[in-house]
């Protein structure tokens, strides 16, 4: 299914984020949750964002829709362009126009993300009525159609039911229906399968692929599961401490990871296709304090290959192969010279450290 999409991918990006900074004002001080994220999403593609807990994946996603808590969160700098239109300066009213119709979002736990006291039908229909000038009957027809599309049988009767009358997998399908019913061009899915068991997880991922083929929606999927990334994503952004440290096509990043953090992530994940019995290695140490992030590379303190320069100066972004970018001092020609052996950096599961 990757083939037909390739021609659209050549076009200009649908969504382009440049140097995004998001800060939270808390009692303890300013939390610099996102510190210069760049992100590109092309029409019809799936971009995965991976990284440890707290690295700013959800904050990045939410700031695209400006769904951050208004009182504490602030986009301090950067630009977010959707179809060439700048979103950072939009008023709340303009943003409301956009939410649900151009960009939609689905959340991890459908059990809490849907309203327990309003029927499923009404929760779908209200979105349609918000963004389209159609009658209630027409909205209901669209809701039925959408429920059918996401694989809910007997949609006519299901519309009148409440959240508790559905199973976990069906709830997630309903969330997807709500998000896609107004045919947005971008769907953001924040850990959409984490709360589900493995079989249901696979079904939901297939549903994403099917819907993407049908509607051409571009998907940003946030996950901890590199298996999910391998299964459905075209490209992947690896985030660490509020920054993207490595980005590129999934195959490229997984097979020729360049950043030590990406290597660490891959080594800490179980691999089904691995015939070697290598013990899983969690990355030692903890992420830096986002109240006062270090001046250099944030990963330096945990990096087994850190050099003197890493802790003091931020690395530049480099592009070792087309579309594959890395932000690491090891990419610097001077570091290459220092390296004892000139073998490739490593393969997944066995980083050459």
């Amino acid at each position, binding site marked *: 299914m990757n083939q037909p999409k390739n021609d659209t991918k050549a076009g200009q990006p649908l969504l382009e984020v440049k140097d995004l900074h998001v800060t939270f004002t808390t009692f303890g001080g300013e939390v610099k949750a996102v510190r210069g994220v760049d992100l590109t999403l092309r029409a019809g593609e799936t971009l995965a964002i991976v990284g440890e807990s707290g690295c700013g994946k959800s904050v990045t996603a939410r700031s695209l829709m400006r769904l951050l808590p208004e009182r504490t969160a602030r986009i301090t700098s950067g630009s977010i362009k959707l179809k060439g239109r700048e979103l950072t300066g939009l008023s709340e009213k303009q943003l409301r126009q956009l939410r649900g119709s151009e960009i939609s979002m689905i959340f991890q736990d459908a059990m809490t993300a849907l309203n327990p*006291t309003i029927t499923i039908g009404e929760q779908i229909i209200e979105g349609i009525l918000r963004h389209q000038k159609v009658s209630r009957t027409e909205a209901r027809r669209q809701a039925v159609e959408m429920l059918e599309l996401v694989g809910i049988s007997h949609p006519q009767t299901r519309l009148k039911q409440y959240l*508790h009358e559905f199973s976990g997998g069906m709830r997630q399908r309903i969330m997807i229906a709500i998000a896609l019913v107004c045919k947005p061009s971008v769907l953001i899915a924040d850990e959409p399968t984490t709360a589900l068991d493995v079989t249901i997880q696979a079904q939901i991922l297939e549903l994403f692929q099917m819907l993407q083929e049908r509607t051409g929606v571009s998907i940003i999927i946030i996950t901890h599961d590199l298996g999910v990334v391998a299964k459905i994503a075209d490209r992947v952004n690896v985030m660490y401490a509020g920054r993207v440290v490595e980005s590129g096509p999934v195959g490229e990043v997984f097979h020729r990871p360049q950043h030590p953090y990406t290597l660490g992530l891959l080594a800490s994940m179980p691999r089904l296709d691995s015939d070697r019995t290598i013990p899983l290695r969690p990355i030692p140490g903890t992420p830096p304090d986002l109240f006062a992030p270090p001046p250099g590379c944030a990963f330096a303190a945990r990096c087994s290959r850190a050099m003197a320069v890493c802790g003091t100066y931020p690395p530049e972004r480099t592009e070792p192969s087309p579309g594959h970018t890395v932000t690491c001092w090891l990419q610097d020609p001077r570091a290459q010279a220092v390296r004892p052996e000139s073998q490739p950096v490593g393969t997944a599961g066995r980083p050459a450290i």
Partner: protein
Amino acid sequence: MLITLWLIVTITFFLMHSVPGSPFDRDGKEANATVIQNMMEHYGLDKPVAVQYLMYLKSLVTLDLGPSIAHYPDSVNSMIDRGFPVSLSLGMIALVFAIICGIALGTVAALRQNGLLDSFAMIFAVIGITVPNFVVATMLIKYVAVEWKLLPVATWGTWKHMILPALALSTGPLAIIARLTRANMVEVLTQDYIETARAKGLAPATIVFKHALRNAVLPVVTLLGALIANILTGSFVIEKIFAIPGMGKYFVDGINNRDYAVIMGTTVFYSALLIIMMFLVDIAYGLIDPRIKLHKKGA
């Protein structure tokens, strides 16, 4: 339900009879001993308490609450006939006012969380809960009625007469509802489904009224039974203060006169009323919360 009612009847009956004094004690005035003797015989008060108790239960089954002792030949049933409509309208006005204003106040406070309006609302709520309603009533009479002459001081008749007693009666429940609504609303607004609603592009007003309010107000419904009880007992004092010819006034007079039949009659009547109300509140909760309906269907 009937067992609860029977327990209340029994306890009230024996408590009442254990209080010293009798219906025919009159401060200062010496009544004729034979007259009293005749009266006691007429009302059956010369018999042992146990016998009186059984007699009372017997008449209660036929819904006859007996004659008033102090206001012969008035019967307790006819007192209720006259007094209850008055008390009911006063209580309903107070309750409706408390619910509407309490929910509105709590919601506004939650939306302006930690703001000035929130602080005012919550200070008001604390005052409303702690200051007894007779103090509120006295203040209202002193300022609104006596000094500013905006409304009548007391008694019953036109809608103008209803305002002050209804206000005084509703402050406590209003404050309780406001606090509960605020707490629930603050909690509900942090829920994921509110974020989902925002992500759909819904306007803040739609989110508050359609998605948040219903879930925030649900727990208030469970409190309704207690609030009705609060208003009922409050009405005894308020009716006495405003000289309103309702049930409460008859009850208080009944106690002063040790009018056994009136005390018993009003107690039984209000207990029955309250038990029925609690039952209705339970049913209402099931109707507005879809999650509970399922449990009943499944059971």
